[in-house]
């Protein structure tokens, strides 16, 4: 699929009608995407606070298994929000997968996190954004937040869960 980040596919051909229409539609939303990206950056710390407050209640044993587990949770969730905002701005889900989700999922699997743990964490992130963001901002971000939940919770149940 042709997006803003892979226009080099047009090196030796012209865009198809469908590609052109999709990019024109994207162009019409780019100002709103810019606003939504800025909004998410501004509310990012509060969103992660909302999420982590609940995760600490739900998973109090995390520090037993993972040194500085909650601190790293703050850091990783905040980093993911920046990537989510950028992918939404570029209207490019593959950018999100390629730049962060693929390797982060591998990392989280190696920590013996459970699918439920992952789903809980990123659902809390999405619900906090829903609560804090303007409706249009949330509408633009929602597909990326939901994709993150689905992608990162798509891991096998570990034989020895560490959550």
């Amino acid at each position, binding site marked *: 699929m042709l997006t*803003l*980040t*892979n*226009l*080099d596919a*047009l*090196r*030796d*051909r*012209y*865009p198809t009608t469908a590609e*052109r229409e999709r*990019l*024109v539609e*994207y*162009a019409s939303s*780019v*100002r709103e995407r*810019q606003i939504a*990206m*800025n909004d998410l*950056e501004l509310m990012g710390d509060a969103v992660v606070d909302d999420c982590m407050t609940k995760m600490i209640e739900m998973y109090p044993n995390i520090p037993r298994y993972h040194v500085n587990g909650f601190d790293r949770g703050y850091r990783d969730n905040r*980093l993911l929000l*920046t*990537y989510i*905002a*950028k992918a939404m*701005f*570029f209207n*490019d889900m593959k*950018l999100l997968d390629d*730049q*962060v989700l693929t390797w982060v999922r591998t990392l989280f699997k190696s920590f013996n996190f459970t699918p439920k743990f992952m789903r809980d964490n990123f659902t809390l992130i999405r619900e906090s954004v829903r609560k804090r963001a303007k409706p249009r901002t949330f509408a633009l971000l929602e597909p990326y937040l939901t994709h993150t939940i689905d992608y990162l919770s798509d891991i096998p149940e570990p034989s020895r869960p560490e959550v």
Partner: protein
Amino acid sequence: MTNWITKLAHSTNGRPLSQDETEMLVDYVETLPDRLLAAKKLEECQKWLVKHLSDYIAPRAIEWGLPKDPFATDFALCLTALVHSMVCSDKELLIAEVILPFCETADALEVPRNIFADLFDTAWHALCKRLDPRSLQLLEPSFTDVVLGLRITEEWSKATVESNIANAETLLTPMEA
């Protein structure tokens, strides 16, 4: 070679895009519909352009040492690379994917580069009769840069071309935002 948008999208390494980067991208994206329309218009008149260039090349082919056919077709197809740089608004692409390859082709065919410059000039003037003003406005810097790029680099060698194009950067028309 990778265009500036893709480079920017992949280069931030987890930091948010800066305000300047975002503004630059938004300003560019808002011109994208016109750029895509210009590409479509050029594609639509490609067959006509091939015919026009064939008619132009035919009486000059022997003198220039160019194959008569399918040179015009190949030349018109090469315009996709020029259009690609216009769509991306990226002069580096234009240098890497149009100007330098044409210098190399001219050398391989032992044809003076001015002939290729003339062909681009001829194609441009032909397109002026067929395309709308906005498409021409967007394509003009690319055609100008190719013609200048090919004319500036006199005694061809890869080193002198790169050096001359680097020096020519300030002489050439800046790509429109």
